[in-house]
C-alpha cells in the first residue's frame, strides 16, 4: 500500500470527498494493477469465505490436542436458552468468534484476518452485523476494505504476528480492523473509523502471546471473543462521538514499542505466561510430539 499512516488515508478521503474504503480500494487497484471489479470481487470472495467457514462449523469437533472444541456450540445453546445477560447481538458475536477460532484449531478452512490465530474477530463482528441489520454484501465488502486499510497501516507501522509483537499484534489488530469496519457500517466517516480502530487497539495494548504447548488453541480461541466484543464497544464509543486522545497513528506506534519491549518468552514461544503455569507444563508434557 502506498499509505504509511491512517492520517494519510483520512486526508486523501477528505480531500477527494470519498469514503475511507474507496481510497483503500483505489490504492489496491494501482498497487496490484487490477480493475475496480477485480479488486472488489477479490474482497467479496474473502467475505464469502468467512461466511462459509462460519456455516461449516462442526459443534462436535475437537482439535488434535483435545484442548479446544465444542465451546461455540455451548455458547449458542446458552443464548438460545436465554441464559446470557449481554444481549442477543453480543451473544451472537461471542458464539461466532468461538466457532471460528475452534474451526481454525480443528484444521478447517478459514480466512486469516490478519492472522490465522485471530481469524474469528472480523467474521464474528461483520456476519453478526449483517444478520441483525440486513445490509447488502456490497456494503459488507466496503467494510472489509475499511478494515483491510487499517490492518495494512498497522502492518506498515508495527507488526501483525504474535511472534514479533505478542497477541496485541494479532487480536489487537484484528479488533482495530473490525472496529473501523463496524464504524463504517454504522454510518461513520473517516474520523469515526480511525478513532474506533484506535480505541480498540488501545484497549488491548500489552496483550502477550503465551499459547499453551505452543498451539493456536489456549488462550487464542477465547481471545478472539474479547477482540470481537471490544470491536463492538469501540465502534459504539466512536459513533457516540468519543475520540481517542492519542492520535490513531501514535497508538499503532505505541503497540510497536510495547511489542519490541516484550521478552521473547511472551512472543509465541510457549515459554512464559499461561504457557508456563503448572497446568500448562503438565499439558505440554503429554502433548509434546514424539517425532
Amino acid at each position, binding site marked *: *500500500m502506498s499509505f504509511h499512516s491512517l492520517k494519510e488515508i483520512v486526508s486523501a478521503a477528505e480531500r477527494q470527498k470519498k469514503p475511507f474504503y474507496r481510497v*483503500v480500494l483505489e490504492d*489496491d487497484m494501482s*498497487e*496490484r494493477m487490477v480493475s475496480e471489479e477485480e*479488486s472488489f470481487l*477479490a*474482497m467479496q470472495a*474473502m467475505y464469502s*469465505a468467512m461466511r462459509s467457514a462460519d456455516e461449516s462449523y462442526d459443534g462436535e469437533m475437537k*482439535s*488434535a*490436542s483435545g484442548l479446544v472444541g465444542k465451546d461455540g456450540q455451548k455458547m449458542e445453546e446458552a443464548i438460545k436458552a436465554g441464559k446470557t445477560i449481554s444481549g442477543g447481538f453480543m451473544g451472537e458475536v461471542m458464539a461466532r468468534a468461538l466457532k471460528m477460532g475452534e*474451526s*481454525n*484449531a*480443528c*484444521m*478447517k*478452512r*478459514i*480466512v*486469516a*484476518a*490478519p*492472522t*490465522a*490465530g485471530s*481469524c474469528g474477530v*472480523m467474521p464474528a463482528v461483520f456476519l453478526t452485523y449483517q444478520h441483525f441489520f440486513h445490509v447488502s454484501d456490497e456494503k459488507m465488502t466496503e467494510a*472489509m*476494505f475499511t*478494515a*483491510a*486499510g487499517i*490492518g*495494512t497501516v498497522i*502492518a*506498515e507501522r508495527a507488526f*501483525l*504476528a504474535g*511472534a514479533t509483537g505478542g497477541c496485541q499484534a494479532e487480536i489487537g489488530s484484528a479488533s482495530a*480492523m473490525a472496529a473501523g469496519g463496524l464504524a463504517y457500517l454504522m454510518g461513520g466517516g473517516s474520523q469515526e473509523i480511525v478513532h474506533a480502530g484506535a480505541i480498540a487497539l488501545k484497549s488491548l495494548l500489552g496483550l502477550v502471546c503465551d499459547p499453551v*504447548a*505452543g*498451539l*493456536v*488453541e489456549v488462550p487464542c480461541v477465547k481471545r478472539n471473543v474479547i477482540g470481537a466484543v471490544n470491536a463492538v464497544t469501540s465502534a459504539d464509543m466512536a459513533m457516540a462521538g468519543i475520540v481517542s486522545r492519542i492520535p490513531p497513528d501514535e497508538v499503532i506506534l505505541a503497540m510497536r514499542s510495547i511489542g519490541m519491549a516484550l521478552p521473547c518468552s511472551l512472543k509465541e514461544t*510457549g515459554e512464559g505466561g499461561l504457557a508456563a503455569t503448572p497446568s500448562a507444563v503438565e499439558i505440554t508434557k503429554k*502433548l*509434546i*510430539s*514424539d*517425532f
Partner: protein
Amino acid sequence: MNLFDIVGPVMVGPSSSHTAGAVRIGHIARRLLNEPVKEAEIFLHGSFRATGKGHGTDRALIAGLLEMRTDDERIPDSFAWADKLGLAYSFAGIELQDAHPNSVLMKLTGTKGRHLEIVAASLGGGRIKVCEIDGLEANFCGDYPTLIVRNQDQPGHVAEVTSMLAHKSVNIATMQLYRDKRGGSAVLVLECDKEVPRESIKWLEKLEGIYKVTYLSLEDVEEGCPA
C-alpha cells in the same frame, strides 16, 4: 505487502507458519522432484518437531507432497490420501545445525526413481525458504521459477547456463553460487522472471560436468492430486 496479505489468505488452520507454510514446502518439494512422490522420509526440527502434531504440520507436509494447496479441505485427511495414492512416508525428529526453528529435512524418491533431498524452513505468514538441496546450500523462496544446477566446480558452467537463459530471453532475478570445495561439487541457484523452457533444461542435463538439474516451475502441472 498488499491488501490480501492482510485479509487473507483463505487457508486450512490452525497456523500460517506450521500448517500453511508446511503445505507450501511439501508442494514446492514435489515440484522440484518433477514427478509424483513414491517415498518420503521426513525429519522435523525445532518447533516443527515440538508442536508439529498439534499444528498438523505432518499432515500439511504430506498434503503438499500430494500437490494440495494451502486451502484444500482434504489436508487433515492427507495420510489417507497418501495411502490411496501410493505415497509411503515416515516421520522422525532431527537436530539440524544452525537451522530456523521451523525447519524440515525431506528425502524424496519419485515414481520414476528420481531422488531429492531438501531442507526448507517456514518463516511465518505462510512464507517459506528452501535452504538446502541435495546437501548443498540454496536460498530461495519459491515465488519465482527457480533453476538449480549442480555441476563439477570448473570454469564455464555459469556461462553455459546464463547464456542459455539469455538466448531464451529469460531474465535472471537473483543468482547464487555455492560449492563444497575447490574442484568439488558446485550449485548454481537462479530465480527467474519467467519460466525456463523444458527443452533447455533437458539440454543442460546432457552437458558434460553437469550432475543434476532441478527446476521449480510455477506453471500448473497437469498431474495434480486427484479430487
